[in-house]
């Protein structure tokens, strides 16, 4: 059941550059559990889209199945969305993107949806460098089916539904996987850290290619207990940050100046700039080897590395790889697709 929110608009509410209120980026009222990390991520998405001046119909929301995959109903009501099938959102996103390169594609998935049933598609959408933002709302469990361990549940972690038995398998580190697969944008964040997540989302949506954000997002109902490494308390205590990120849209100047030596500016394809500061010293965000090493070093210390982990500013997305025309394929009409008079005659002749 979803509720329509009251639609009274206070005249003085601020509008962004494209004329929308923050509210225009919201969705129906969430039906998730009160306190669910996923709702915080939805709020960050609303924020990021508002600040990024995205027109709602220029964005398409895609998801698989799960509590996490329900969230696209809770943000950007005016955008088209597709709640597809379990684990297969990447293929839906690929087809949609190939059909219309001009939209922004925002995919939302869960750790069950991505790391188990969806692993194959996750790997291959990375390999194709599809131009999309892919968020995993990572709670280490299967929320919607009542709390079973997912493949990102850490070895030794204990969930509420596990009956006192701790996870006996090694966790899959989705950010590590993405790096191993040469993803062109890899980040991690925490649902509770909006300050970090919002600029990451903006950077991800500005990136030309596959932008992956692994967001640790506690499940308050099944995996927020003591002993769980995906509980709010545990995560808060085990975060190590790569650096702070300032997102500077293409038309803007970098105004703040940071201490030399521990800051870095990366220019994306569309002239957007990512301004990084307070950098971890053993980390270079545009060097994938350094990123891998940093991720691993942090893991070895039992911590979550958050923030931007790696970005390839030279990234070429699938459309560039396939060399498609500039006009979206879904807008090519009969005349544009007609191979020309005589062509079929020629083809027929070739078969005689």
């Amino acid at each position, binding site marked *: 059941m979803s509720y329509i929110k009251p639609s009274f608009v206070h005249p003085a509410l601020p509008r962004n550059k494209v004329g929308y209120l923050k509210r225009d980026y919201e969705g129906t009222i969430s039906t998730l559990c009160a306190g669910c990390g996923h709702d915080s991520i939805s709020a960050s998405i609303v924020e990021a889209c508002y600040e990024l001046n995205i027109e709602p119909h220029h964005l398409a929301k895609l998801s698989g199945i799960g509590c996490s995959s329900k969230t696209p109903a809770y943000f950007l009501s005016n955008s088209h969305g597709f709640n597809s099938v379990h684990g297969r959102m990447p293929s839906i996103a690929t*087809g949609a993107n190939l059909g*219309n390169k001009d939209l922004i594609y925002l995919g939302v998935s869960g750790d069950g949806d991505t790391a188990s049933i969806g692993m*194959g598609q996750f790997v291959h959408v990375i390999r194709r460098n599809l131009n999309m933002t892919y968020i995993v709302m990572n709670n280490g469990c299967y929320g919607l089916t009542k709390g079973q361990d997912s493949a990102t549940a850490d070895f030794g972690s204990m969930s509420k539904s596990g009956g006192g038995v701790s996870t006996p398998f090694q966790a899959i580190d989705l950010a590590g996987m993405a790096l191993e697969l040469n993803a062109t944008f890899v980040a991690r964040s925490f649902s509770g850290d909006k300050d970090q997540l919002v600029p990451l989302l903006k950077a991800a949506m500005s990136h030309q290619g596959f932008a992956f954000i692994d967001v640790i997002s506690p499940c308050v109902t099944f995996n927020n207990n003591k002993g769980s490494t995906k509980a709010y308390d545990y995560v808060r205590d085990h975060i190590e940050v790569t650096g702070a990120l300032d997102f500077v849209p293409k038309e803007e100047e970098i105004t703040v100046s940071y201490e030399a030596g521990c800051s870095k500016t990366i220019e994306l394809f569309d002239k957007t700039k990512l301004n990084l500061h307070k950098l971890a010293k053993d980390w270079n965000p545009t060097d994938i080897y350094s990123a891998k090493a940093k991720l691993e070093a942090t893991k070895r210390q039992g911590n979550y590395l958050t923030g931007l982990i790696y970005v390839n500013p030279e990234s070429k997305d699938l459309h560039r790889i396939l060399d*498609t025309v500039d006009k979206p394929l879904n807008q090519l009409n009969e005349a*544009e697709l*007609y191979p020309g008079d005589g*062509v*079929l005659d020629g083809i027929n002749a070739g078969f005689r």
Partner: protein
Amino acid sequence: MKEATTEKDTEISVNDFVIRFANVNGTGSASANGLFAKAIFRSGVPMSPKNIFPSNIQGLPTWYEVRVSEKGYLGRREGIDILVGVNPQSFKDDVESLVTGGFLIYDSSRQLHSEFLREDIHMMGIPMMRLSMEHFEVPRHQQLFKNIIYLGATVALLDIDIQVVRTLIEEQFAKKPKLIPPNFKALDIGFNFAKENLTCPLPIRLEKRDLLEDKILIEGNEATGLGMIYGGATMMAWYPITPSTSVAKAYENHASKILVEKQTGKKKFAFVQAEDELAAIGMVIGAGWNGTRAFTSTSGAGVSLMNEFIGLSYFAEVPATIVNVQRGGPSTGMPTRTQQGDMMSSAYASHGDTKHILLIPCTPKECFEMASLALDMADRFQTLIFLMSDLDLGMNEHICEPLEWDKNRKFNRGKVLDANDLEKSDLDWGRYLDVDGDGICYRTIPGTHPSKGGYFTRGTSRDEYAKYTEKGEVYQRNVDRLTVKWNTAKNEVPKPEFYQNKNKGELGMVFYGTTTYAATEAMEMMEEKGIIIDSMRVRAFPFGQEVEQFIEDHKEVFIIEQNKEGQMRTLIINELEFSPKKLIKVLNYNGYPITADHIVEKIEEHLSIRDLLN
């Protein structure tokens, strides 16, 4: 053993024979065999080749069978008149496969073992390998040109115009002209050897005709790929699987030439080899959701893997097209043999109450037409369409009318609202609202309008305004509307084709797809025996009024198909509620294309048993 060809114990028979080439795959015989078939085609005589190949790349037996039929019977025929046997592995079986009085052409470079001798056939040795080694140096060439040598010999023996073959060779190697002279040379070696050592022509022989007009010779899959291009498919996603791979190849090859922006060389299409079939169909559905015409092609196992997504397309009402080039099942089955074994599993694919529209072509021309029709129907009905081909149609060359396209034809995009439509003040738009009473609702494409028309597509139940619901009555209203839509489709799918104009005799015959070739031949054979059977070729599922009427009008109807369970018969009984008693199965499911003889035999068997009982 009979003396080669001299005796006149075989009557002269012109333009009516079956010749089979028994080779080892991966040895370059495909090219020689193809030239042979094309030479007959160019001689204006109807013929149909069947490639019977193993599920492997190199070293196993492969056969190429050509039926030549002045009368235009293009189905397979049992009984091999001439066998060119150059595969030692299968030689014994090959020799046995010849009809009495038939002609065996074999490689006599080495002495034939006596176990292979047959008294009742004509054995014609040609020292192919020896000749090849005498004239060519590189071992690879010796191997390759051996094939052209036997081609030359058959040209002489069957009285084919050698100039036709020469022209074909010139065309084939137009881009590698250095290869033309050695091919000519090999052709002549074989030709001359036959002329000098064997009595040419054989009593079984070819004579030029002009029976083919402007017809073309093309594989169904090639035509399907082309049809998708003309039909406006700008995205194809697929995963390799025999026998559907050549649909993808055809689409890619032709699109790379004709769907390219002149100025920039950029592509007006996207062609994606997916990581598996689940991803392929997912991409097609994603594209369809986004208003892009898209399709995938696959076969048995691939369709099974797509089952979940097929249900999503059906229930979320997103256009999608699957080309199912059927092969021998179940499971991996016989991947290089033909069957019509996926009719039911496609028609009712996915869990829950689902049904899908099937289009069933029987010639490459129809593959071309139904490909674009499938795209139209997917948009029109906002659902998943199956184009049901099979290995025989898809991977063998067939003679058919040239492909045609009306340049003024518009794509039927179905009920799509654009920004202007959405602006209309009196619009009460609900994605799943049946405004027109035909069960088909109005959809919107992402990106259309900043504040109107956005909705959340889902595979769960929802109300008319696309809002999630678990209310029983709302769910039921929605699925009942899907039934209305299904009924609408019955009137819009391709109508059946009738043979003998429904003269309303007692007996009827129903068939579809590649079964048609043999079935129509069988019909004529039976007519000669005085048994008149009306015939109907079904071209789509669901069935329209005409299909129902035909079955209604006949007391007994034979359903002829190439699977074990009689799947089309089940569809007919289930959808049209006919008594199973009047529908008689005539089945062939051994993986080889069905023959007219088989059909006649089964029908006569039934009729004689019935007469006995009466």
